[in-house]
């Protein structure tokens, strides 16, 4: 059927603030859906409370509502707009649940709004564990033995019938919240209680645990004409038992025979066709018994998901974009393949590469959290590596993680013994794959590893063994005598230059790079084209590999070009905000007439959508990869201001290589980052700052602490989101903090500041073009100093500071911007005590709050800032009309509930995973008054 022309306006529901289990993949899908519908001439109205999203930009929708995701907000929108249909499948579980709630209350019916994409019955069938089970049994699809319990007593009874090990799965929860394995009777009580409480309808499924089975996911599209295609088959490296969001996953499936795959495909298609009214993207998960090759259905998600975002990036097939078109009536065969632009959208992508996704965790932020991986998702972000072999892809993914891994292996860290390792890898934890490699290095057999890990497929272990064998070979050589063939082999298996040098314990990566470059061992770029080169594709989406012959598909154009460095995996302290900044940067670069080139490795993001930049390199934001791209593309310069600390960190080396840093110069950025140089500058500018000192060991630290006066803030230099920052009040605590810090970051220069107790905090975001200075916004924190700015509720504009204080802040900001010769963005944090303004720090880059201000004032600040960085515009070229009635509050959102037993304690180290925006008319607003009352409640240390 062609497009349903009765649909003229569509409401898209977003997924709200980033929390564990629901991250920026939904910005990606929402953005794609909005663009896809507008392409069809449909008016798009969007609701999302998350200001750091691209989807909520005026350029993405006809009307954007930055409102809390509640039925009240929905009603408000429906009152104000004529809306024909609502698309609830783009905003994750949050959107589905909201759509269902509105349906239950009769809201859709009242306003004559149709649900498109999926109907409530289908949602119920898929999301309600018991209904799903019954449905599967009716369909004749095998499932694990299970029973639904609505009470503690029932749960206990069923557990007895089913036997251990078993799984408790709460109904209607997100990312497996509240679920868990129960190995024996002792664990049952607590698990049952937690599950029943986590479920909004207080219902849990007590289910046999199919531990040791292999886990697979199929991403599908179905249209209203019952046509179904499988876009991607993903295999989990970790066997059943680890949430798929916490699993290392691989595509295409590596160990699945055609008979096994067709069984899954047929079953998934049967499930999809029987689901009811559904047109769009869907995800089906299966477990496969490796001994018998029988399969059971685990779950079905009738919406786009984290997995579909990954599948889109893994295959090049834009699932959300096509799903949106299917929702308005199109059939798959009426649409074209978005990558080739010459073939049909009704097809199944063929991959001639491997992708490996590795999740990124932040357990260090949740003291006391159980870091065992299980049914409940705990990771905060993910990376994807693409290569022409599993080994290459997995090592590239490791290089993308930004946790000091230079490949599959940390070097120079203390080694466990073989026995310890065998014990350690029994339990799935974030570093298990690294430990498996260590175990193989020590000669532990593949058999043993497969057994103790409860069934990690041997094929993956054989592949890791290849990495181990090459590593052992490399270790026999030094830079001077390492054979070129060995270098070539190592590169083909994903070893980084730095990794090879560390293994040899000789040479610098630059030396190795020059050596291999001279021998012609260089990266070739290959296209992600959905079709294994069968058809000519025009989409500029590339990854690197090493090939015999080195045929490079990424042709350099004659245009002037600028590279934007992305921010890598989402983590606490560096999240979706920076992707928002990068996307705007890319668009501004294009508008300014340059070719915009993106480098990033986070599959959840909009910036890695293949049609945002002129050219996308899906590569680790890691020196070696970046450098080879720079050598190939020879850009005018590189923008590091938009990708957070990840990108900024690479500025020094780019600068040293003579590559222009667009905007503020490297040296000036370094002044801002280097506490010593920065304080000297402040002194010169006669700007007050808290007393401070630096130290390299405990003795020095104690001395400094006493000099600047307690309480003091102890923190490492060059870190993100206040990592390992502590407020301490005596010598003993200083010692403890410093020892712990040096243990984790040896050789770090430790910063010790006098902590301004009970003072107020505020921050300024501004743009400077070399002549004029513009204050984007002044934000006052509701919480007192001591709570990381990312965890504070910030009010825009300031609500309680005196005009004199605000003027002083603005005055200091301008002075600093001038002194640092900022070109582009700067964020400055202030502490105000007894009316005196102190500068705490300055960040010469886009900050976490830039998108928030842009949204609150409705000014495209990132676009303006990028053009100023490029030098194509001056501030005077723009008009700034700040449209804000009342105040906007940036509310931090936490994911503490994912970590039972961890208290919500706030301090100088950032803990929040996301943020929401809330507009209030005035300070009498009850929500604001409550926040204000609670402002010191969670401050710990």
């Amino acid at each position: 059927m062609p497009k349903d022309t009765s649909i003229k306006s569509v409401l898209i529901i977003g997924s709200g603030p980033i929390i564990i289990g629901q991250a920026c993949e939904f910005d990606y899908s929402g953005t794609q859906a909005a663009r896809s519908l507008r392409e069809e001439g449909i008016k798009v109205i969007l609701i999302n409370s998350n200001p750091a999203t691209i989807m909520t930009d005026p350029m993405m929708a006809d009307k954007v509502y930055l409102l809390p995701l509640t039925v009240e907000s929905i009603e408000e929108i429906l009152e104000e707009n004529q809306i024909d249909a609502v698309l609830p499948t783009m905003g994750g579980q949050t959107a589905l649940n909201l759509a269902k709630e509105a349906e239950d209350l009769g809201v859709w019916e009242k306003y004559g709004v149709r649900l498109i994409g999926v109907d409530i019955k289908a949602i119920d069938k898929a999301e309600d564990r018991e209904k799903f089970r019954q449905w599967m049994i009716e369909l004749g699809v095998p499932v694990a033995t299970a029973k639904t319990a609505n009470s503690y007593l029932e749960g206990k009874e069923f557990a007895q019938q089913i036997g251990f090990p078993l799984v408790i799965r709460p109904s209607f929860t997100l990312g497996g919240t509240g679920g868990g394995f129960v190995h024996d009777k002792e664990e049952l009580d607590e698990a049952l209680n937690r599950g029943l409480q986590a479920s909004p309808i207080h219902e849990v499924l007590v289910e046999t645990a199919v531990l040791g089975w292999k886990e697979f996911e199929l991403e599908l599209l179905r249209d209203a004409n019952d046509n179904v295609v499988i876009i991607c088959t993903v295999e989990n490296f970790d066997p059943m038992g680890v949430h798929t969001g916490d699993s290392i996953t691989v595509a295409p499936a590596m160990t699945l025979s055609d008979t096994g795959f067709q069984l899954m495909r047929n079953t998934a298609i049967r499930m999809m066709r029987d689901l009811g009214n559904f047109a769009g993207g869907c995800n089906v998960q299966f477990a496969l018994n490796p001994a018998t090759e029988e399969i059971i259905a685990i779950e079905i998600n009738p919406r786009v998901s984290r997995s579909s975002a990954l599948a889109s990036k893994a295959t090049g097939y834009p699932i959300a974009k096509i799903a949106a078109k299917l929702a308005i009536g199109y059939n798959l065969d009426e649409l074209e393949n978005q990558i080739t632009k010459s073939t049909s959208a009704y097809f199944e992508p063929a991959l001639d590469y491997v992708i490996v996704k590795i999740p990124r965790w932040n357990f260090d932020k949740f003291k006391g959290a159980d870091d065992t991986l299980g049914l409940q998702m705990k990771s905060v972000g993910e990376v994807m590596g693409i290569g022409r072999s599993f080994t290459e892809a997995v090592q590239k993914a490791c290089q993308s993680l930004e946790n000091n891994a230079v490949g599959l292996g940390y070097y120079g860290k203390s080694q466990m013994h073989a026995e310890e390792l065998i014990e350690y890898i029994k339990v799935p934890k974030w570093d298990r794959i690294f430990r498996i490699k260590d175990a193989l290095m020590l000669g532990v057999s593949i058999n043993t590893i497969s057994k103790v890990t409860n069934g990690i497929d041997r094929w993956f272990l054989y592949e890791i063994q290849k990495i181990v064998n090459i590593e052992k070979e490399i270790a026999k050589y030094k830079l001077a005598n390492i054979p070129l063939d060995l270098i070539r082999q190592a590169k083909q298996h994903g070893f980084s230059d730095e990794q090879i040098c560390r293994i040899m314990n000789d040479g610098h990566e630059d030396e190795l790079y020059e050596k291999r470059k001279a021998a012609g061992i260089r990266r070739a770029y290959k296209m992600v084209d959905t079709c294994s080169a069968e058809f000519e594709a025009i989409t500029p989406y590339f990854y690197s590999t090493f090939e015999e012959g080195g045929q490079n598909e990424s042709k350099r154009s004659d245009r002037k070009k600028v590279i934007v460095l992305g921010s890598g995996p989402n983590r606490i302290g560096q999240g979706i905000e920076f992707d928002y900044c990068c996307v705007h940067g890319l668009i501004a670069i294009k508008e300014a007439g340059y070719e915009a080139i993106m480098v990033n490795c986070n599959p959840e993001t909009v910036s890695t959508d293949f049609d945002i930049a002129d050219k996308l390199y899906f590569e680790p934001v890691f020196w070696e990869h970046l450098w080879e791209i720079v050598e190939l593309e020879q850009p005018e310069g590189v923008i590091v201001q938009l990708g957070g600390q990840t990108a900024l960190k690479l500025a020094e080396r780019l600068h040293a290589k003579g590559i222009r840093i667009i905007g503020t110069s490297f040296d000036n950025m370094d002044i801002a980052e280097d506490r010593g140089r920065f304080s000297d500058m402040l002194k010169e500018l006669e700007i007050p700052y808290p007393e401070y000192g630096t130290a390299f060991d405990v003795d020095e630290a104690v001395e400094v602490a006493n000099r600047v006066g307690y309480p003091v803030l102890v923190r490492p230099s060059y870190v993100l989101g206040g990592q390992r920052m502590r407020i301490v009040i005596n010598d003993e605590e200083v010692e403890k903090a410093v020892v712990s810090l040096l243990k984790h970051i040896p050789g770090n220069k430790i910063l010790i500041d006098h902590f301004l107790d009970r003072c107020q905090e505020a921050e300024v975001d501004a743009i400077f073009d070399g002549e004029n200075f513009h204050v984007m916004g002044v934000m006052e924190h509701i919480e007192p100093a001591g709570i990381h700015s990312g965890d504070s509720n910030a009010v825009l504009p300031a609500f309680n500071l005196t005009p004199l204080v605000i003027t002083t802040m603005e005055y200091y900001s301008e002075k600093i911007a001038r002194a640092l010769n900022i070109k582009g963005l700067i964020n400055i944090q202030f502490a105000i005590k007894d009316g005196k303004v102190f500068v705490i720090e300055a960040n010469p880059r886009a900050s976490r709050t830039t998108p928030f201000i842009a949204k609150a004032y409705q000014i495209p600040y990132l676009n303006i800032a990028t053009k100023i960085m490029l030098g194509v515009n001056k501030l005077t070229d723009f008009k700034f009309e700040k449209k804000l009635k009342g105040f906007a509050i940036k509310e931090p959102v936490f994911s503490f509930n994912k970590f039972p037993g961890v208290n919500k304690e706030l301090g100088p180290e950032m803990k929040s995973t996301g943020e929401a925006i809330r507009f209030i008319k005035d300070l009498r607003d009850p929500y604001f008054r409550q926040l204000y009352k609670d402002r010191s409640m969670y401050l710990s240390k």
Partner: protein
Amino acid sequence: MVFHSAFFLQIFAKLFSSIMTQAPQQQAILVLEDGSVHYGKAFGTIGTTTGELCFNTGMTGYQEVFTDPSYYGQVIIMNTVHVGNYGVKDEDIESSTVKVRGIIARNLEEQFSRRMAQGSLDDYLKANNIVAIEGVDTRALTAKVRTEGAMNCIISSAVTDIEELKDLLREVPSMNGLELASKVSTQSPYELGDPQSDIRIAVIDYGVKKHILECMVERGAFVRVYPAKVSFEELKSFNADGYFISNGPGDPAPMDYAISTVQSIMKEEKTLFGICLGHQLLALANGIPTFKMHHGHRGLNHPVKNLVTGKCEITTQNHGFGVDPEAVKNADHIEITHVNLNDNSIEGIRIKGKPAFSVQYHPESTPGPHDSRYLFDEFIKMIREGKN
């Protein structure tokens, strides 16, 4: 035609006499008809092999592909980057031996993991005397075939002299005009299924895949498989209710014997179903010419639309020849039932007023999606209707 098989024998003789070293992965060389030389590592048997270069984009089912008789005479590029991961298994075959002449891949795996597997791909290829090369930029090769078209190639892990390889390559005949079906056909008739069945199907084997026969037997048919050059009189003696014209390798145009058999069957008004080569033969028998495609369709993801039902199916394909679309469109006696959504090529036809139909793709789909197996149901249904 005799010359060609003699040539292949000559190559095989070379292959047997080659030195069987145990050294870990010796070099292998791939030379294409366009003169380009590619280096990689040897896998499978050490030796030399030649054939027409083609590529397959499927990500599963390598064993089924390697044993598919339609690949006879061809050297196949496997686009998926890991091949051999799950070993080999007796049930996953389409014929009793490996039919491809050679394999080109990025990574061929010696180590495998599948509890139900019987052995490794490496051992299997060695047992079948198949020469393979890995570590090659298969993507670049595919792009070459895509742009320059199908061409012959030679792989060798035994001969290192490029000029010698080029000389050998020059002797390889072009696939255009090459009759190969009779080379892979059964030598004598055999039967499958329940002899008491009321559905009797005569299969003419031009290189039939095992799973095609299974698809018919599963649906209750009694099947008798005949050699390619069977006479129509012999076929008739089976008293079949339906005839199946199989898939197979090579060019259909020179297969006069087969075209006349199909014409004879049609005269009898018996139900007839053709797949792939069988589809091309049905077209030729009805005056529609075939042609050699630029580089063919080979993979598990080709989109086809059924014009009768309006539904789509993802199909398995393996063909280097096609039926002339213009001629089909202009033929009043032929109905187009299926088209390819990528390039609008003819995927299925029905002869108006006759119980005869055929598809260019492989509805048995081993390997590949089972979307099109309904065609076997239709075949059986048509046979039943024809009987009443």
